[in-house]
């Protein structure tokens, strides 16, 4: 895997919900290509039967008593919302006509 194509980059940008221009797609293709080539040095290591580490602590699940605790006040939670109506968050249309 060397250089990514512009189309691949645009697909990744869509997955990441980032609008990018043609120019940016080319720049990202170059930068991601360099980093993935660098990352391929990991293939020098034989990792057969090596467990992946997602977390250094030996924690699996952390449970608490199933008791209701008071959350934050809704009015407070709405303070940073740019567009709202009747205590609800407003967004542009989700479905096209």
């Amino acid at each position: 895997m060397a250089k990514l194509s512009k189309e691949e980059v645009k697909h990744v940008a869509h997955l990441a919900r980032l609008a990018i221009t043609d120019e940016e797609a080319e720049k990202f293709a170059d930068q991601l290509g360099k980093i993935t080539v660098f990352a391929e040095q990991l293939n020098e290591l034989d990792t057969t039967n090596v467990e992946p580490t997602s977390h250094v602590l030996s924690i699996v699940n952390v449970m608490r008593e199933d008791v209701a605790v008071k959350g934050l006040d809704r009015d407070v939670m709405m303070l940073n919302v740019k567009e709202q109506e009747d205590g609800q968050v407003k967004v542009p249309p989700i479905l096209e006509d």
Partner: protein
Amino acid sequence: MTLFERSARELQEGLHNGEITIADLTNEAFSRIEKLDGDVQAFLALDKDNALKRAEELETIPAEERGPLFGLPIGVKDNIVTEGIETTCASKILKGFIPIYDATVVKKLRDAGMITVGKLNMDEFAMGSSNENSAFKTTKNPWNLNHVPGGSSGASAASVAAGEVPFSLGSDTGGSIRQPAAYCGVVGMKPTYGRVSRYGLVAYASSLDQIGPITRNVYDNALLLEAIAGVDPNDSTSADVPVPNYASSLNGDIKGLRVAVPKEFLGEGVSEEVRQSIYSALEVLKGLGATVEEVSLPHSKYALAAYYILASSEASSNLSRFDGIRYGFRAEGVKNLMELYKETRAQGFGEEVKLRIMLGTYSLSAGTYDAYYKKAQQVRTLIKEDYDKVFENYDVIVGPTAPTAAFKIGDNIDDPMTMYANDILTIPINLAGVPAISIPCGFHEGLPLGLQIIGKHFDEETIYRAAYAYEQATDFHKQTPSTWEVK
């Protein structure tokens, strides 16, 4: 002269015997910030009125209810949420965001009687090694204003080095506390993963991020870690391990301490002056009765590649919450929801953040997941095992914090690989989850150099003991930059 030349203990004495008031200390911070920050550019937000009000309130608390950090001012990195004070992570996408709650560490600072004076600049979302990736300003190194303070907690280190505040909090995902501490000649600790609650720390890479203290000396650093450490019901990755009284074990005695020096830490890319400063530091440790032996951490060279895949993958997931809907910047003139997401993020995030989101999304996407993400997690296991093995026979691992002194603003930035190489001595420590400190150990052309001391999981105590003994035997930490003198 400034009050901030004094240690926490000396400041408490001053408060106790009535020589100074808490308001004097708060005012000292704001007056120094006013005079120095035009040059240093460390602060993104100040909370002067509330801080002064709180100083007055604290004055009424009787002496017997006061702890060792009571009444002292502190600066907080801008990726730690502070109720009522704008928190931006130095990103346009969070411009104007006013948190509605305090991070657990901020609450703990308040419980300790500390006064938060303001928020400190950083690389956007903690992605960078120089503070040049801030969307708002480039913080300068107080030792030479043409040089970077390091990053991503660059302003946390610079503000303490300049004596604007005696204490600060930073965060460290791949070296972001230790490298700026080294560049700015201050003491910076990255605690064990899980030692300090991450609740209210805006997440970059959740399996690596840790909040830690930055101070002018080791003793004060130990006090501040003790104040912020401990298990927290709001962070299920915070560990239920007792928090020792770190400062009480600092007696300067390290006879018999077993010190390991990895040959990989003094190899290619490490400058001659850094190497010499470490050899001198090892002589000091030997003189104090420690034994020093060379060891190997054979997978070190793979840490950087593994880190960039893991950290970027976690970042691409964590930063998906910035969508322009519930808080922060929101793009205008869009037709539908998908466009709102894409335009908000395209306009709100800076270049480096976008690159890492792209890399992470690519690493996690169908068809590449096993080749990149899973492979990197397996390599992480090998790196962690390197450390486990060395710690079977040694108490601490010692080496440089960074391969060079602080570089010039504008240098390096064109080539991402060069910037990444700057992190090579610090990243494996985050992957292994072990604690590590950087303390001053020399100067090169007027810029500080840092000694890194790495310890076992949850053994910050031994790190502090070694760091304190070294510090007491040297005087690098007593030097101050010329910016220290207010004109």
